[in-house]
């Protein structure tokens, strides 16, 4: 649904160019023309500002010295006619990692010791999620729009897959978000986007060393409004980011997964060799 909204409302050019081509063959031409007209009427394309964006790195390599990184996401707002507004625009910058399925468990005291008693499964939790905004999210968007665009840690759509009452589900979601936030994997920076001359924007996203590898997406939103919430998303752009291991680290990881028996044998051989060598050296020194 979100994708459709974005296509229809905000990115008419891209929609026309590639998204609708399959419909031409399938439905004939007339409905397509009607749809196009509808889109053109609905969005006065010329009056929309555009977002231009770039990243300090589109690929983050995890090498043996990797101890976390910082991704700089920056760019400019291109206003129709080149007229910058008098007030700074609302900008939200999101970096989203690969989705994963996971189980959250909660401990409770049973016979004096703390054990996991309750579990809740989530179908789509991002392995990494950072949002930086010019102002707190609640000052930019209302609850509904924040949920549609998943802006802010409170608005992540984690898709709980275990039936539970809403209160429990909320507790587990909060627990998950809090835990990930303490590991630096979920980040919210309410004033993390700096805007210069109401045109240029930049945000620094901290990436911890325990970040999961995979395909990431940087999303930038331009939000208008009076700064009291209730704004509208005026433009949106995305850029792909890849986080992956390289060199030695990648070699070991691939080796461990693709030739796991051989890897195990090498580990054992290494342990035996080191232990044996140390024993021999120690003996020589004594004797």
């Amino acid at each position, binding site marked *: 649904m979100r994708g459709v909204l974005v296509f229809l409302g905000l990115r008419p050019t891209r929609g026309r160019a590639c998204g609708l081509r399959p419909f031409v063959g399938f439905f004939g031409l007339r409905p397509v023309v009607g749809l196009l007209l509808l889109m053109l009427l609905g969005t006065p394309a010329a009056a929309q500002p555009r977002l231009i964006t770039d990243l300090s790195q589109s690929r983050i390599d995890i*090498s*043996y*010295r*990797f*101890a*976390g990184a910082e991704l700089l996401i920056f760019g400019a707002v291109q206003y129709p006619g080149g007229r910058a507004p008098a007030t700074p625009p609302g900008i939200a910058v999101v970096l989203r990692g690969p989705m*994963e*399925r*996971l*189980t*959250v*468990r*909660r*401990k*409770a*005291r049973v016979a*004096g*010791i*703390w*054990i*996991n008693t309750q579990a809740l*499964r989530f179908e789509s939790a991002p392995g990494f999620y950072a949002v930086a905004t010019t102002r707190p999210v609640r000052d930019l968007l209302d609850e509904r729009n924040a949920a549609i665009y998943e802006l802010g840690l409170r608005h992540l759509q984690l898709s709980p897959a275990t039936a539970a009452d809403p209160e429990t589900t909320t507790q*587990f979601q909060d627990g*998950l978000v809090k*835990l*990930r936030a*303490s590991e630096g994997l979920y980040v919210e920076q309410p004033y993390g986007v700096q805007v210069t001359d109401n045109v240029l924007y930049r945000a620094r996203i901290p990436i911890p*060393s*325990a970040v*999961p*590898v995979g395909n990431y997406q940087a999303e930038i939103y331009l939000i208008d409004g009076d700064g009291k919430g209730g704004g509208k998303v005026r433009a949106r752009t995305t850029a792909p980011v890849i986080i992956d291991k390289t060199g*030695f*680290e*990648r070699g*070991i*990881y691939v080796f*461990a*997964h693709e030739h*796991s*028996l051989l*890897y*195990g*044998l*090498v*580990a*054992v051989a*290494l*342990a*035996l060799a*080191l*232990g*044996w*060598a*140390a*024993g*021999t*050296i*120690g*003996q020589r*020194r004594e004797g």
Partner: protein
Amino acid sequence: MDLYLPIAEMSVNAFVIIALGGVVGFLSGMFGVGGGFLTTPLLIFYGIPPAIAVASSATQVTGSSVSGALSYFRRGQVDLKMGAVLVAGGLMGSVAGSFLFRWLKSLGQVDVTIGLIYVLFLGTVGALMLKEALADLRRRKAGHTAERPARRHHPLVAALPMRMRFPKSGVYLSPLAPFLVGAGVGVLTVIMGVGGGFIMVPAMLYLLGMAAGVVVGTSLFQIVFVTAVATLLHATQSQSVDILLAALLLAGGVVGAQFGARAAQRLPAERLRLFLALLVLAVAVRLAVGLTWTPAELFSIQAAVS
């Protein structure tokens, strides 16, 4: 120096891990134990994911036991026949342990089970050791020579069928008994990343009634084989052996062990036993506290098994 661990998928301070290996190595050199029972909890405490800590600790124990096993072997203090039975049991146990581990993981009860087993075993073994060490000290103070109780195995062991002779250990018993001891230790090796010497040695002495001279060597012999198999099981089933982590631990461990062995020569044996008993009890108490005190974080996350 920061170093990224490829399997644990996190950055650690290499010097901290080497130092950790060194401290454990020092203690293991001093007391003649593998030290796995210290490595695993310390790694988890440092922030290494438990599964990786357990697997890599097993690899480290292989390395830290092999030189000891070899030197006991050269001095003829390994009962190969008994060792073979213990290894066979250990292999059975480690395979069973890996299934048990997976089952516990699906229930989400791995951490609490490991904690409970630790508290139970370390608490019992530590208390027994402390009792014996104190009695020993008291006897020595009173000027008596230590009178060893007559060596004999447990009545339950004597009841098992198919008895055979183990001349080097000086026992005549059913091989089922050492097989079961080996199997129990094998389960612990896979689940907890320990060699299990701290359980096997008392079991060999008091349950099987083996001659004291071959107990430590034979136990090390079993540990080398079973921890190696545990490493292979972890590597093939869950890819949780971090070779870099194990290498760092070993680098510190082998150096620490040399210093520990030298320190041990300067301290009287009964004092050493007392220290080891206190150390084991301290770990047990620390873990018991962790199980019973209200944790700072009630929630935990487990990635879905794909």
